[in-house]
């Protein structure tokens, strides 16, 4: 089965950890993830600038490794990301900001990518939100 997974909550929220565990379980069961889409506060999990204490779970690093290992399509909503200070090199330059904190494996793109994933997937599973 093809899954699209959307994450709305920040890295420190329990639902962020559940999303990662779910995504891992999807692949372990030999299903497919057509796209990960980070929206709202979920964009913080794609930031390269999150520093986690050594004895705590580093969710952004785990997401990064997971996406890299499985060569997944990891999309971060550009409007939500800009609003929250998550920028790649191109956007940092465009808006004259001093630094970028988003790089591979993540892509900044629009909400059309969420709709595209909804169309491509058999199931959309969302984590976070109210």
């Amino acid at each position, binding site marked *: 089965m093809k899954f699209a997974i959307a994450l709305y909550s920040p890295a420190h929220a329990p639902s962020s950890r559940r999303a990662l565990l779910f995504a891992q379980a999807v692949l372990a069961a030999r299903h497919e993830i057509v796209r990960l889409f980070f929206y*709202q506060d979920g964009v913080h999990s794609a930031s390269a600038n999150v520093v986690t204490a050594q004895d705590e779970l580093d969710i952004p690093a785990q997401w990064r490794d997971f996406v890299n290992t499985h060569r997944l399509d990891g999309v971060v909503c550009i409007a939500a990301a800009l609003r929250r200070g998550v920028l790649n090199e191109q956007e940092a330059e465009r808006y004259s900001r001093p630094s970028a904190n988003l790089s591979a494996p993540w892509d900044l793109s629009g909400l059309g990518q969420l*709709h595209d994933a909804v169309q491509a997937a058999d199931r959309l599973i969302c984590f976070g*939100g*109210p």
Partner: protein
Amino acid sequence: MPHSLLIISRQPPWSGPNAREALDIALAGGAFDLPLGMLFLDDGVLQLLPLQSAAQLQQKDLTANLQALSMFGVEDLFACHTSLVERGMSPNELSVEPIQVLRDHEIAELIDRYDQVITI
């Protein structure tokens, strides 16, 4: 057949970007001519109050964007009757039209009709 998507907006208009970010999903999907519906539930119905003074909170008014939904191809708009009544709102005086006001059992049927659901 494209997958249909119901966006459930449950957050009030002026407590952060939630209401706008739910609306943005609908507007983006409308541009692709996808079968979309939007349901205002719980505090989300507060977005439908007429005569809001967003400028006093130094915010941009969402009402014009909500009213533009039908122009963007999102014509299936719904509001929860129970949520409206709980907040002292009249189903006949909403800022967005046309909108279908649904009873609880109709909301269950509505969610069932859509292929996918996003709740914000």
